[in-house]
């Protein structure tokens, strides 16, 4: 489980692969160092993308598109900034673009977050939920809440770091995350919302 202050625990994380954090842009397109940074961050990108898309195949497509875009924009990466955040932002941007394009084509519209809340029938999950069920719960969240939840709760970024990735103020991340966490708890636990707290008090 990632720690709040130490988000990178997997052995392939860029922080361990490169304690300096920021990547060097190297020389020439797809420099070996830049590619190494990409490969190192792949597991976390795949996890992020899996959470966004809810599909292993779509997730890897998304990550592949992000890697290809990163390679063409290697020169835009600013030394001294975090490489992982830069890649998360690219993944997020491509995914949002895909959602918008899908909405235009009226294909599989994203579920609205309002569907999930204190009024929806809740169920208590005693055992550990599988990825499929959690993915289903995530799908019910609006895209921007999903992004906040995955960056902070799953990947362990701080609010400030997540805000930088999403390119929104910290307060916006806070409110998106709060709505997402409450909705998720309501769906997975049958509680955790203000409504449930009020209900409990009424008992």
């Amino acid at each position, binding site marked *: *489980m*990632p720690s*709040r*202050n130490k988000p990178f625990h*997997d052995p*392939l994380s860029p922080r361990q692969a490169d304690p300096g954090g920021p990547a060097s842009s190297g020389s020439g397109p*797809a420099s070996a160092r830049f*590619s190494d940074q990409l*490969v190192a961050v*792949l*597991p*976390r990108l*795949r*996890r992020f993308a*899996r*959470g966004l898309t809810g*599909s*292993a*195949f*779509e997730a*890897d497509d998304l*990550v*592949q598109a992000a*890697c*290809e875009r990163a*390679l063409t924009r290697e020169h835009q990466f600013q030394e001294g900034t975090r490489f992982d955040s830069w890649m998360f932002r690219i993944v997020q941007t491509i995914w949002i673009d895909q959602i918008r394009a899908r909405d235009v084509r009226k294909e599989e519209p994203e579920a609205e977050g309002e569907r999930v809340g204190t009024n929806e029938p809740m169920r208590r*999950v005693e055992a*550990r*939920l*599988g*990825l*499929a*069920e*959690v*993915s289903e719960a995530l799908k019910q969240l609006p895209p921007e809440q999903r992004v906040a*939840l995955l960056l*902070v*709760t*799953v990947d362990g970024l701080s*609010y400030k770091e997540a805000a930088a990735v999403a390119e929104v103020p910290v307060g916006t991340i*806070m*409110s998106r*995350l*709060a*709505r997402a*966490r*409450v909705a*998720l*708890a309501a769906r*997975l*636990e*049958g*509680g*955790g*919302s*203000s409504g*449930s*707290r009020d209900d*409990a*008090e009424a008992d």
Partner: protein
Amino acid sequence: MQRPTDEQLIAYLDGETDGATSSEMAAAIAGDPALARQAEALRRSATTLRAAFDDILHEPLPERLVVACRGEEKVIRFPEPRPAQAKRMARGWREWTSVAAAAAIAGLVLGGTLGYFLAPKPAPQVATNPPPAPNLTASSSNWLDNAAGYYKMFVNSGADDRRLVDIPANPQSEAERKLANQLPQGFRTPNLQPWGLVFVGARLLFIEGRAGAQLFYTTDNKALGPITVVVASTTAPDLAPTFDRRGDLNVLYWRHGGHMYAILGTPDIGYLWNIHNDLAWQFDAI
């Protein structure tokens, strides 16, 4: 302190509040059982969320992604399908059969010719020697051939052709019950929905005299294509996941805990491996 908002409570749980606010929040939670329950539910759901995605970090990276990171053209290289010895044994069996057949024909011809001249002499014994008992590898090869062949029939006839499955996926409860009778105790049809793969039915089969089933999964994703999963009991020892090929199909098979498994399909080896990880995790419950 006034009742904290959801944002404040979650920021506290996430360690995003300063020292003074954290102390106030801790006191508020301690003095409000409903708030404490809500905090616990939020903690648990966050833990569940993280745990669900944790395994992804440990999956082998699909080769296409690594290739993309290098900015190279996509090149799929398949590993050697089987250990060299197993391959030799399989080849040896085929060659022996060919030699035996050729010798049989030669023996008959020779025997007939000589018999014509030397009357009572029988044909050489080599023609009548029994072939060696098929080894385990040859046996594995046979059931994989069978599974691959049936997969081809299934794909060619269309996933909607129910004649090719003994147990349709729907109604699900009925399918589960029938498969449970055929398969190891505690067996549950693997859920591959996260991969976009939908279980459509199964056929029953026997491998080395033991009951098994071949499960069929389809997907709308043409790049991934349908896959089939074979599950059966076995007395053979555990076997590490092994790649193989059958025509244009990629195959991954392994044995664990008295069960044998195989995945066959057109996805590249990276995907098969990832699906194998998922299946192995789900089958651990057996």
